[in-house]
């Protein structure tokens, strides 16, 4: 930490962060209460006190390669205890939002996702792709007759092609961003001093922590003081979304395997285990998304403003699950006029959610595990240096 840093404050960066609902940042006078109350902050690398002053000083490079903002799980304890109402939690959220755009590959997509002006373009891409698929299938002008079959509306192959490409793109872009972040962070730490950068044990520990929501639970279990924060629902809500998504992933993969290996074609009966899993998972996601939205609206005063990207992500999340159910209901109720358009919207939203995941708030699936891994590395270094 003792290298001399030639300081060149990036005022533009500072202004942007202040604009991302972190305007109270300036009030910080560096008392360090936030770092003390944070249940996740460690003695070796305490946060968010230093992130506050770095932001005040426009230290963009340093911040963009700082794992702390992704280790934060936004429990709001720091903001609750801040004696100056500088709202460190909002600053951390703003930094995360900025860093998603900063590390984005390709970069323009990062900008598009954070600017409402580009929303039509972003939706336009899947719409055009899907319309093209419908045109190929000949269902663009004439809806299929008879029993409602979504594969008759748009053949599986087309869906698979579009979504496999979208997912592959998202995966590559996300990994590129995460690697950039990783490299910058490791470089900022300087000479490793013999510590191994990473290991399978560390990776395994991170995976375990994620599945058990350990950091989330820390926010609740290891908290100090008794002031109520506004994010106590977070561990549960996030767990619902997390495993809901997991369930939907298994359902989709199962279906994929069923179709290509076993010639098993949907629709499945409502009592099929996979179907039950899918429905339960969907409900979990919807309920959690509703809780997220509800808390954001109800706690607006205390929890701070919700930015555009926050709304975009949580709304798309809700709509994905909701349109999924609606198309299922419309199909069962034999309402083709409702079922097919809803299904179309559903696919558009799923595309939006998955393909743009490295650039939206969803990007945390790439950055947060990376940051957790960096934190493990950091700890190892501190242990070695005694």
């Amino acid at each position, binding site marked *: *930490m*003792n*290298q*001399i*840093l*030639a*300081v060149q*404050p990036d*005022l533009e960066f*500072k*202004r942007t962060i*202040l604009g991302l609902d972190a305007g109270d940042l*300036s*009030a*910080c*006078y*560096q008392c360090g209460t936030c770092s003390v109350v944070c249940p996740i902050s460690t003695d070796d690398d305490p946060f968010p006190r*230093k992130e506050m*002053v*770095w932001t*005040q*000083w426009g*230290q963009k490079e340093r911040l963009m390669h700082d794992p702390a903002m992704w280790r934060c799980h936004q429990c709001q304890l720091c903001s609750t205890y801040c004696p100056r109402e500088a709202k460190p939690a909002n600053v951390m959220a703003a930094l995360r939002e900025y860093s998603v755009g900063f590390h984005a590959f390709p970069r323009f997509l990062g900008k598009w996702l954070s600017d409402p002006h580009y929303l039509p373009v972003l939706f336009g891409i899947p719409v055009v792709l899907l319309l093209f698929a419908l045109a190929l299938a000949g269902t663009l002008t004439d809806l299929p007759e008879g029993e409602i079959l979504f594969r008759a509306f748009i053949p599986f192959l087309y869906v698979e092609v579009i979504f496999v490409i979208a997912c592959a793109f998202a995966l590559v872009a996300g990994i590129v961003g995460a690697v950039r972040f990783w490299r910058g962070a490791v470089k900022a730490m300087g000479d490793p001093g013999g510590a191994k950068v990473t290991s399978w044990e560390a990776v395994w520990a991170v995976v375990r922590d994620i599945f058990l929501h350990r950091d989330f639970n820390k926010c609740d279990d290891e908290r100090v003081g008794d002031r109520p924060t506004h994010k106590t629902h977070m561990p549960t809500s996030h767990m619902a979304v997390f495993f809901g998504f997991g369930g939907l992933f298994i359902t989709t993969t199962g279906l994929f395997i069923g179709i290509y290996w076993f010639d098993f074609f949907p629709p499945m009966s409502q009592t099929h285990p996979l179907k039950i899993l899918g429905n339960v998972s969907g409900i979990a996601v919807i309920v959690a998304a509703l809780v997220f939205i509800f808390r954001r609206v109800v706690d607006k005063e205390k929890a701070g403003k919700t930015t555009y990207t926050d709304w975009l992500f949580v709304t798309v999340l809700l709509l994905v699950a909701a349109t999924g159910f609606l198309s299922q209901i419309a199909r069962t109720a034999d309402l083709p006029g409702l079922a097919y358009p809803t299904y179309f919207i559903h696919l558009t939203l799923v595309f939006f959610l998955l393909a743009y995941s490295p650039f939206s708030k969803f990007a945390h699936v790439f950055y947060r595990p990376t940051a957790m891994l960096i934190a493990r590395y950091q700890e190892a270094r501190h242990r070695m240096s005694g």
Partner: protein
Amino acid sequence: MTRKLGVYVCSGCGIGDCLKTDRLAEIAKDELGAAVVRSSAAFCLEDVQLIRDDVANEGVEAVVIAACSQRVNTDVFAFPEATVDRINIREQVVWCHNAEDPETQSMAEDHLRMGVARSLKRKPPVPYVESNERRILVVGGGVAGLNAALNAARGGFDVVLVEREARLGGVAARLHRQYPKHPPYQAPEEIPLEQLVASVEAEDRIQVYAGSRVARVSGEPGHFEVTVARNGTPLTFVVGAIVLATGWKPADEARLQRYGYGRVPNVITSLELEDMMMKGAVRRPSDGGAIKTIALINVDDATDEQQIPYSGNVESLVALKQALYLRAGDPDRQVYVAYRYMHAPGLNEYFYKSAQQDEGIFLTRATDRSVSRGEDGRVFVDLDSTLLGGRLKIAVDLVVLGTGMEPAAPETDGLNLAYLQGEGLPVNRFGYADSNFICFPYETRRTGIYSAGCVRKAMDLAESARDGAAAALKAIQCIEQSSAGSAVHPRVGDLTYPEILTRHCTQCWRCTQECPFGAIEVDQATRTPRVNPNRCRRCGTCMGCCPMQVISFADYSVDILSSMVRASTLPEGDDAAPRVLVLACENDAYPAIDMAGVNRAALPSSVRIVPVRCLGSVNRALVADAVIMGYDAVALMGCRSGEDYQCHFIHGSEVLQTRIANIREVLDRLALESERVQFLEVQISEADRIPEMLNAIVEKARALGTSPLRYTVE
């Protein structure tokens, strides 16, 4: 001729439950010869009328009240026609001693005897009222001086204002802006100096001598003879009191060299930046280039002798002020502020917040700062241990250093006092005019001379203005007291003053040297000491130091104190109880013992407590008397001495400690244990230590055994 004695024994506040008050009354009547003796359940209530009536109708001249401490009910027990002595049998006897113990009664009886002895020995004071000039001299025409003059004039006093420069205003005239003094305390403000100067010049009562110096001051409060050198011609007049508001000067440049000043181009002081702003534009001194980045550095990080002492919060707030006006002058500028301590007390917090809100101002603490030459006229600033973690290097166009405010040397450069102890005002280790800073902030060690503004401590314009007004009030107070023959602080209202029996004086002049306030001069004709009563603060240090014991006050002398000691009784017999005489300073030790009583602490009843004005007033003859009489030990309780002294009279307990060394030598010569005399340091707030301290000295006395001298003197 003995004055008519009245003794009043109170039994309220638990006294009657603990003591045999009728026995005290009996002693007063039979043994001490009181003409009138009365008892009451509460003399402080309507029964005080009994005392008043006795004074008015019975001709009682010496009132002795055995009740509560002399520190309380002073307004109730005030009888202008008589002297009043208070025997503290409440706080120091019944509240801290066991009612069952016969020693408690004995202690009360002894304190009664001692109080009556004092009462019979004292003389009513004859006040000295010869110096009563009411004009006030204000030295220094800066904001503090101008306000002092204005406030004194508005208070109805004539003022002479002497300013060295040709124009009034002082440093304020050099300043571009001041930090805010009005709500919402967010932006730098204009300095309303012109109005202030105009109102001073318009005031009829104020005579301004600009371009003048004070050449000589002699005399005393109520009658200072002042000579002012004005355009080379001396001008002489008389004033009653003086306000010294000579301000400050920038710290020695050599001290700023460590921050690159004079060594690296484009490093200036904050005062030079103000000059630059007054001229209109901020440009790089080296090449006149534009200034986009500026580092404002507080020079408060040195820990060695290079340390620039005490600019206090002024330096911090000036840096914030300059950061804000530099930013306002050009919104593209980036301004860094590095400090070790950021002081923004009180409402200035709002100003600090407003600097924080400015996106182009970067604040950080840093413990080590070095400044070096950069490229193209730029300056590199290295900061260590910053809030950002580790070291920082900043390249800037201009470095502005805190100026460092040193008081205008009041010890050498000011009033040219015609005092035996020196021409200047004694200063403390920071160069400010010395006094008991906490208890008497405006007083200097020359009574009647009050310091105000930055010569007193580093402060801003608003505080200087208030300071000037406050010092003017002190000067007025001084004039009023002096002309009535009364002491000013801290013994306000004391009408006595030291009187020297010059025919017995050996002309050692020790009193002229030991007086903390330079009150005693040498009479050129008789070569004996001569007291200037109004310079005196009545501490009695002269009385304590005099080897011939020829200095005394009407109500306070070695003889009076000695009589009190001798009035107490010492038990005889082989296993007699120990007796310890406690001479307690009235300002710290005595209130602390009172407080121990209020807290119902358990104190040893073998002590006999005599209040003294200051330990400096304790003459070694008095201690010798107590030892020779047979006291087993003498404890001298006073305040902390040295650099952070707490003495109201500067060095009372310090000079006493050297006297103790002499006393101990005498004890050794008498083949007595020198530990029988001890100095005990106590602060007014240390009531909780009193039981431990007194018990320790009593145990010491017990361990040393009964004084062998106890049986030799009646």
